């Protein structure tokens, strides 16, 4: 069995990626899900994972090469497969591959309902709704939404004041409730990052019957501390130079923040109404540099997964100890405030397993 190791597609606009580093030597044994190479895209750097177990027989792309989405990075096969067959596989792939074809199945486009922009991947099953953090948007789930959608519809939305949604400081949990109603989503899995985690938890606490399972990724609401410099810096930064160091606080590795990410956030922040909406949220959620709201999940009977990056510089990972005692808590080493981007593969596996609990149980 010969498996292609291809250039993944992260997010709607990705057309190509540049190989920054190979993490595995030719000839090494790898398991499915192992990180094999690091790739830089216009938006973000990410890890390419092995699609199957075997031996990394060939590194077709070299460090520095720019490979289109779907293009060949390497070849995985059993040690027993003769070299000639590997060569033939590579030759055949290169003869038939047309860059851009993968793009045509570009997938869904964002829609807007009652002023809330959202995107949906996949369909059916028990739907999962992804909730971004303060200042984020639905694109923060570029490594997660599509991979998690093979067995269910996955929705990602923009909170009011964020992304392509109305620029008002509407109460986020009410916006979420209204969104679920508007889409006819009666029972959903919720996964939220940071502020989105707080919102997910608030909905689960107030309407437990509506929430099949809860996943809190570096959530707000489990302790008073938060990096006020991040919140203030994010709101007030008006140039790329001011914004970049603020965004770097989101990641353990500051190199994850590239020009295009800073540009996108800056352009969003310039939109009329955004500044006021963010200030309004700060006032409600983090006045005086402290978290004002505490999650009480004692009335929520469903499964709870808490994922935190050990090196989170925005909300300390120690808050995980305030999660309900029955919660499954995973603290990921070497990861900052954005586990769903920094350790996407691991987070997706944890989520997939967690969502499966409900079905089997």
């Amino acid at each position: 069995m010969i498996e292609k190791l291809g250039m993944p597609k992260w997010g709607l606009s990705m057309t190509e990626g540049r190989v920054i580093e190979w993490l595995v030597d030719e000839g090494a044994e790898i398991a499915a899900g192992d990180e094999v190479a690091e790739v830089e895209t216009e938006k973000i750097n990410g890890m390419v994972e092995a699609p199957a177990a075997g031996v990394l027989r060939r590194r077709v792309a070299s460090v520095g090469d720019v490979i289109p989405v779907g293009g060949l990075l390497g070849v995985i096969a059993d040690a027993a497969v003769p070299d000639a067959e590997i060569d033939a596989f590579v030759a055949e792939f290169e003869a038939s591959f047309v860059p851009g074809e993968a793009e045509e199945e570009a997938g869904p486009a964002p829609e807007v309902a009652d002023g809330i922009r959202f995107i949906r991947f996949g369909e059916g099953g028990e739907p999962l709704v992804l909730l971004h953090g303060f200042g984020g948007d639905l694109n923060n789930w570029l490594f997660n939404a599509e991979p998690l959608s093979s067995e269910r519809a996955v929705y990602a939305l923009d909170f009011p004041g964020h992304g392509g949604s109305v620029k008002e400081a509407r109460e986020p949990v009410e916006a979420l409730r209204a969104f679920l109603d508007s889409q006819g989503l009666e029972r959903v899995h919720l996964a939220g990052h940071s502020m989105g985690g707080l919102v997910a938890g608030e909905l689960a606490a107030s309407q437990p019957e509506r929430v099949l399972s809860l996943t809190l990724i570096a959530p707000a609401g489990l302790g008073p501390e938060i990096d006020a410099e991040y919140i203030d810096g994010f709101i007030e930064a008006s140039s790329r130079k001011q914004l970049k160091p603020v965004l770097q606080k989101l990641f353990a590795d500051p190199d994850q923040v590239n020009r295009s990410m800073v540009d996108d956030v800056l352009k969003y922040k310039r939109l009329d109404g955004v500044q006021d909406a963010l200030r309004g949220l700060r006032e409600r959620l983090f006045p005086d540099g402290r978290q004002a709201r505490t999650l009480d999940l004692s009335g929520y009977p469903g499964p709870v997964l808490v994922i935190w990056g050990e090196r989170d510089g925005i909300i300390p990972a120690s808050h995980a100890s305030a999660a309900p005692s029955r919660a499954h808590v995973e603290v990921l080493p070497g990861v900052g405030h954005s586990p769903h981007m920094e350790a996407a593969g691991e987070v997706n596996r944890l989520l997939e397993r967690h969502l499966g609990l409900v079905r089997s149980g």
Partner: protein
Amino acid sequence: MTMRTITFQQAINEALAQEMGRDETVVLFGEDVVGGSGAPGEDDAWGGVLGITKGLYGQYPSRVLDTPISESAFIGAAAGAAASGLRPVVELMFVDFMGVCLDQIFNQAGKFRYMFGGKAVTPMVVRTMFGAGIRAASQHSQALYPVFTHFPGLKVVVPSTPYDAKGLLTQAIRDDDPVIFLEHKVLYTLEGDVPEEPYAIPFGEAEIVREGDDVTVVALGRMVHLAAQAAASLDGVEVELIDPRTTSPLDLETIVESVENTGRLVVVDEANPRCGLAADIIAQVTAEAFDSLKAAPRMVTPPHTPVPFSPVLEDAYVPSPDKIAEAIRATTGSPAPA
């Protein structure tokens, strides 16, 4: 944020439409901005000589006005309207016509705030097209932004992309000082990603178009694109390309910081070289960052002549990517490729 691709011209039209919708004191006037006075039954057919204001008369018929061919009258009217509560956006068809209305701009509008002890504001915008490249000869092709930059009291904007054009024009309209907004006529058809939502870009914040450690190149308006071509053509020289976007206020800090890193400076300016923007920026950077300079700064400008009408001469007149690349190489001491 809802992005789509539109032209520079559409971006300007959209900023005008959105600001007129947001604020009813925003009024538009100038020659033919409706459709040409007296055009029978064809109101709004043109929307200005190049169609930039097309459609606005239909949306806001009482706030879009055609004027006689009398720049001294309607630019003066704008200054008065601004001082008494409106936010006029006037179109001076070609910047080359500034001569007949300059008193109204620099001696009146530009001095109201200062001479009335800060008690008066003059929120007017003069939109005007500039630049060579369309065979329009000496009286319709000049790049006169240094002249306006010279006068304290005026803000001067020279956008290079559709995104910047919309955001900077929005800021110009909301600004309480007189703003000269210069649109390069070759850029009108340039396409780029622009959010549908209204947004403003602050003045005095340069855009770093590309990052590099070897040479700082400063360019404005159309020259940004030619400088980017030059930068892309150079192997082994990492160019940091800076677009100041506004010449007044000028983001000198960003340029100086860059030169402190690269040690080399090239300024590309479509205006004539004497008392131009290239000379101004080089003088200021040299004073601020002399110790960082590894080579003499270079300016790439047209010659000190009127813009020629001959197509061959006009093409030779405007700074080209080749000339820009040559100047960049000269600062690094690397020879031109054989």
